[in-house]
């Protein structure tokens, strides 16, 4: 019997490890490196109604133990994502969590309704937290009432459970978490990136063409852990935690704070095999903790 499987709304996970949205494309590239069926799930790149071109380059900048990105939700649009990318992923035994983005309620709703009907999409991840686009995304994620209404609207049309991805760029993440729970969210994914800026040493101007970018990587882990810890206490829906995960111990930390599963983002750029490596390391971690099944550690910080 598996010691690391996890059951969540819509998701029957072989293990709690999944690549985070935007850090794994639609899986094709990493499929050259290892068998995607090994993963607990895959969070695909944000999908919008129309093709998005994204921001000018440079779109990334390295920072201390982290990076900034301002990709700008570049994606080929729902038509191509469903027709080509999700079809490709059907070749693997892995549930897909579709990251849905938009500029107004109507296009969130349309993308959610359509993409939730794809056979391998087992859950939606409502992206109300992208800091890198001028309109759409983050303004839905910073006001509790707006977040709740969008969640309700998407819940009403989705054929699969809806997880809402929270932004850390708010005064009280707990208020947003409670609001989306009231709006009917089946789960929460957190955190998206923290808005930041890096300056060029010579010119004194921002390195990233967009000016600001979203900070990710090991540098953000303490912030993410704190937020998961707080939200776990405040809501009764499951949390998929992320932010700076690079190893099995980080996974244990997130689950201890209250996450039921864990996503890995930036670390996929540094060690392209990080997800399968972590999965293989988990049983030994459980042995060291004297735990039989990984679900026993969820929320242990609070006990």
């Amino acid at each position, binding site marked *: 019997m598996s010691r690391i499987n996890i059951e969540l709304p819509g998701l029957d996970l072989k293990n709690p490890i999944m690549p985070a949205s935007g850090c794994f494309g639609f899986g094709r590239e990493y499929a050259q490196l290892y068998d995607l069926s090994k993963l607990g799930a895959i969070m695909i790149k944000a999908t919008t109604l129309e093709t998005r071109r994204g921001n000018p380059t440079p779109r*990334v900048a390295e920072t201390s133990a982290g990076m900034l990105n301002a990709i700008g939700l570049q994606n080929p649009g729902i038509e191509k994502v469903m027709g080509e990318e999700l079809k490709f992923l059907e070749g693997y035994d892995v549930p897909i969590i579709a990251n849905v983005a938009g500029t107004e309620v109507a296009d969130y709703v349309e993308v959610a309704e359509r993409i939730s009907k794809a056979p391998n999409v087992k859950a939606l991840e409502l992206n109300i937290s992208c800091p890198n686009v001028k309109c759409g995304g983050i303004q839905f994620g910073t006001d509790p009432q707006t977040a709740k209404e969008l969640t309700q609207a998407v819940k009403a049309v989705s054929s699969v459970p809806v997880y809402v991805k929270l932004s850390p760029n708010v005064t009280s993440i707990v208020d947003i978490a409670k609001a989306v729970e009231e709006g009917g969210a089946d789960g929460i994914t957190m955190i998206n990136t923290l808005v930041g800026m890096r300056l060029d040493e010579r010119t004194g101007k921002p390195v990233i063409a967009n000016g600001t970018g979203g900070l990710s990587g*090991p540098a953000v882990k303490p912030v993410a852990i704190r937020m998961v810890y707080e939200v776990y206490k405040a809501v009764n829906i499951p949390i998929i935690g992320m932010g700076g995960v690079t190893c099995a111990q980080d996974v244990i930390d997130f689950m201890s704070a209250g996450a039921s599963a864990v996503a890995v983002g930036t670390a996929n*750029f540094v060690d392209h095999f990080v997800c399968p490596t972590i999965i293989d390391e988990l049983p030994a971690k459980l042995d060291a903790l004297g735990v039989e099944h990984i679900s026993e550690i969820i929320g242990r910080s609070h006990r």
Partner: protein
Amino acid sequence: MIRQEKMTVVAQVQIATNIFELTLQGQLVQDMTPGQFVHVKVSDTFEPLLRRPISIANVDKEKNEFTMIYRAEGRGTQFLATNREGQIVDVLGPLGNGFPVDAAQPGQTALLVGGGIGVPPLQELSKQLNARGVKTIHVLGFQSEDVCFYEEQFSALGDTYYATVDGSKGTKGFVTTVFDDVKPQFDLFYSCGPMPMLRALEQYYPEKEGYLSFEERMGCGIGACFACVCDTTDKHEKDYVKVCSDGPVFPKGVVAL
């Protein structure tokens, strides 16, 4: 096939001011073609975090070795320069699509134009072109003489001309100054270097077939993160290309300059 491999340092030599030649040994050498690159993890801590893209400069498949030539400038490449013989370096590669050696027919002449740290990938390209019976002319641009490298290697393969910004070696000026002086006769060109150089080259020889290698800041290096996209010209069927996985080499006229 792309591999992530712990490669062994065979040698690390400083060959010009701040310019290092690093020779590594490992299996992934077997799949390398000129113009491809590797994504190098320079430290096993989070500092610096991201891999560094570096071109493949020389390939020796019999010995399972390849060399890269890089400028130790920022913190990542400076870290890389501290590696010594016998140490291990984590390398992902080979990545991207290199220069099409087959585009040049035996008996033809190819013009190879390099600028600064864009020069290294032209070394393996020139070797392979010459092995195919293609004549090569090299026009290499550098900031100044002290950062020039591989003079002997290029000279052994074909006529080699230099341009330096301060005039300390070869013609004073840019590679285009050499074109004016020498008026090279050739059938097609290959180039790697800074954007202004690539732009000038496209404008200089609008009627010639040519292949250009681009640089862009990278995250994943394999096509997944959309960090390295470039806009394309109207002639191309796609709106954008990714330097890491669609490139870094593109036929001229694809990337909007």
